[in-house]
């Protein structure tokens, strides 16, 4: 029993202050527990209207089959605190032979 060696793209848009560099942190939650989490990384700087888009690719090879929640947290580095967050569900199934 193993997860397939595939990638997952996590895409979102963030609307904040114009021309500002925010950070993002991602967590993978299974059965209510955080099983994997990224360190805060820089989001592309927002444009003049305050919008930026991000689409990191996440390998799911290391994830056990089951239902997951991916949680995205955007952090204002100046204040050092989260300013927005969102989540989505996905499922890793057993690989079919």
């Amino acid at each position, binding site marked *: 029993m193993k997860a397939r060696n595939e990638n997952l793209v996590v*895409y979102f848009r963030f*609307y904040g202050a114009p021309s500002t560099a925010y950070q993002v942190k991602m967590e993978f939650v299974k059965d209510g527990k955080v099983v994997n989490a990224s360190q805060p990384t820089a989001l592309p700087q927002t444009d003049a209207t305050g919008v930026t888009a991000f689409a990191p690719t996440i390998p799911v090879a290391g994830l056990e089959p089951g239902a997951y929640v991916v949680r995205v947290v955007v952090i204002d580095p100046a204040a050092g605190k989260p300013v927005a967050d969102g*989540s989505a569900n996905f499922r890793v199934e057993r690989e079919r032979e």
Partner: protein
Amino acid sequence: MKRFNTLLAAVATFAVTLGSLPAVSAQDKEDEIRLSTAEVLLDVIVTDGKGNPVTDLRADEVQVVEAGVPQDVTSFALVKPGGSEPGAPSAPKGPASIELSPFRGFNFLILVVDRTTLDQFDLKETSSAAVKFINEKLGPNDLMAVFVAGSRLLMVQNFTNSKSKLLNAVSIATDSSGNVISLSTTDRSATRADISFDQAATGNVAVNPGAGGAAVGEAISSLDAFGADVNRTFDNLVDQFSAIALVQSLLALMKVYSRIPGRKAVLLYSEGFAVNSTVQGTFDAVLGTANRNNFSFYTVDAAGLRSVGQTRLEAPGAGSAPAGAGPTLANRGDRSVVDSSGNSAIGRAENSVRSGGNAALSRLAVETGGVAVRNTNDLGKGFQTVSNDLRSYYALAYAAKNTATDGKFRPVEVKVSRKGVDVRTRKGYFATPGGGDDVLLPFEQPVLELLAATQPGSRPAELPVMLRTERFRNGQAWTVPIVMHVPGSALAPHEREVEKGAKTPPQVDFELDAIAIVRDSKNNIVAKVSRSFPYRSDKDKVEEFRQLELLNTFSQPIILPPGAYKISIALYDPNGRKGTVVDRSMVLPPLVAGAPTISSIVLSRDVGSIPVGERERLAGDPFVFEERRASCRTRSASG
């Protein structure tokens, strides 16, 4: 040209199911949805035996029958754009949508020059007729817009009563020098609406809008917005379904200008088009949309009685045919007769095609309460007739007793008890859900019927579907894309006929048609979007198609303010005659100006590069970033 997604790659079953959602059979239980009663507006032209308008008809002399069932008339009033004459008794109030409109008091006339069929000679004749009308008949309350229908729709002049601007626009639209007409040809300022108040500009007396001067500013502002919407709407329709460009142009115009209440005239100068089995559905959509939104077509067969040598002939009985007279075809045998010196076979073939085109023009006029002008060299008759009709008509409203919005046709008849008068109105309309969009596209009827025939809790689930709604901030509102995921194996094939001698391999078509209807917390329909997704596969690759996971979105954006909504999404396979309806609840969170906000988190298998040619079309697509698109047509399963 029909767009098909040729899908040839074999795809394995997915191991990762993104954002899995409950199967359609496990829908949330919701309250029964009752559709709001639709008010039907009719514009009625009543004339005496001599063709003069009858202006003293009373409501008690009028009866409306819809599909054999008498209806209750809720308002009936004479509409005379330009206001009542001084000292005239106060007229009865018309439908509220007209009385309260900033457009009240104006005549709206859209001139469409079909450059796909008109030749040099036709263009000159059309120009002469239009110039004569503008110089001699255009009144201060007549707002006219000029469009050219070619491979795409082009606005040459937004609504204006300025004679000089309209004359310039007609000159461009009917240019017969062979120059290509493009946006660069037209004056950019011509895409702005303009209602002039001074005599010098209009060449007429001062404007006297019934709605008052303050409303004129609102009318101009709205017309500017509509004008800017025309091209986008045309592009959306091209995305939504396949048809010939002229028909899509007419639909785009009606879709945009349906927001102007009351009678609107479309004067179409064309040599027509043949309504074959491919065009039939779309043509019906044009008729239904026109009738639902009070457009009347005044079609002018611009070929008149031209012979091949372009010698004009007059025929007995030539002239304009009132719509009530039915679509009697003119005898256009003149071409084949004249063209007898070695070209008679070609002439006959051409004549056959043209007869079909002429019939289409006649039907457009007859079934929308307009007039077909044919069999005459006097192309000015089109303008003359439309001018008379717009100056005096009755606006009648009734609440239809049959409120099902099943997309079916409802025949309507207006009966007048007074003797010796002729009544001209629409033949009926298609019952559409509305939601700011009373356009019924050719593929929509069975999908609407599926929606109307069932209620939440007992919806059909014949197609395996996974749906996901996303949300992206759009100012103080949200853009809500709906992503629909259907396996290729669920769709029934339709084998294409192979033409004799064809070198291409046999092919198989598949089709999925979808409609989404959004209701607010008060059950009002606030949005309706639809799209047809045609697919084509080589016959020997059908098994590969069946393994594909089809991921689709609507091309029109759904933009909603924060709040609670219910979405009903119907998907229908017309080849297999199977459908699924899914009902969902959705809450769009509040938006605070300046406060950080995040979109929904979209999970995708990969992102695809956008071809250079597609980038302009996809501008504004919330899934697009850095010239790539998330959740675009990939192998991803999104649910």
